[in-house]
């Protein structure tokens, strides 16, 4: 049973400018999703940080298990050939 006395937690994602991704900026409490957007606007965009807001109930986020860090992420360490650093980038290509 959900405790109604405590507002649920929301994670906040802000898009700084058109064309950029929404980035996680923090979290806040709100009674509902609309209030979460208002709070996010007041807490995280008061210095013109963004042009778009996403809020997601924190409980909806499924996270990887910290105890599995080794098996999840270590195996990628010796596969440097996956990094695209072996290509010559032509001068004409400006933003890659």
């Amino acid at each position, binding site marked *: 049973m959900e405790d109604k006395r405590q*507002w649920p937690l929301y994670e906040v994602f802000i898009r700084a400018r058109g064309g950029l991704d929404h980035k996680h900026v923090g979290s*806040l*409490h*709100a*009674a*509902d999703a*609309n*209030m979460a957007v*208002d*709070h996010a*606007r*007041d*807490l995280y965009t*008061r210095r013109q940080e963004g042009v778009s807001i996403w809020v997601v109930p924190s409980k909806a986020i499924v996270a990887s298990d910290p105890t599995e860090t080794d098996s999840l992420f270590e195996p990628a360490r010796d596969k440097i050939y996956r990094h695209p650093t072996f290509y010559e980038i032509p001068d004409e290509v400006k933003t890659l």
Partner: protein
Amino acid sequence: MSLGSPAADAHTVDAPTVGGHTVDSQSLFRYVLRLGDLSLVLGQRLGEWVGHSPALEEDLGVANVALDLIGQARLLLTYAGEVEGRGRDEDKLAYLREQGAYFNAILAEQPNGDFGQTIVRQVLIDAFQLELFERMTTSLDARLAAIAAKSVKEIRYHLRYSSGWLVRLGDGTEESHDRVQSALELLWPYTVELFAEDDLDRLMADSGIAPRLSEVHDAWILSIEAILSEATLKRPADRPHAWHGKRGQHSEHLGYILAEMQYLQRAYPDARW
């Protein structure tokens, strides 16, 4: 303000030099103070919540609205000082005027009460300011039109914030519903003054500087009824009242607000941050 424009210097002494109107500066001064004082006093009232809000998030939410209102007051009082032409700037007007020289409608100075009461006051004034300033963006007074255009964007959010809360509380628990309904009964009579048109309001409307208050009222009541219906609240009956905050006759609350707001400038004249 383009005080130096030759056309204005040539044949006007008393009239403001912006816009296509020739209202005397004393009337315009008083009218601009009505607008500015409403924002200033309400902003100061809201500021009392800082550090006391029901949640940290609301602390910032309320403070943001308060700061917008103070920002509007600064623009309006600065303009009023220029219109008056006696060298008073925004600070002199905000900090060194007596209660009787404040011209806000007295709804703005009513106490915060509980959070619900603050929200009710806010919805009533936000909806009023929104309808008023939306129409003032086409004012013949270019400066007021510009201030209105900037403020409308802020006020639209204020109403979204306050009406969102009113719906949550009104359509919330039995207790929250009863509390905001009582607050509505308490504050509703003061709304009469917002729309009570006197000679000054009429002059401004006739001169194309401000919209007719009857027109603003028609739009306001539609907006308020929609919000109240969503909040499952009952609109109180209209009762005749004669408040005269707009002419400088205030409730006992304004004195306390000014005492707190003006203390520093009066105790340490010309103190700077």
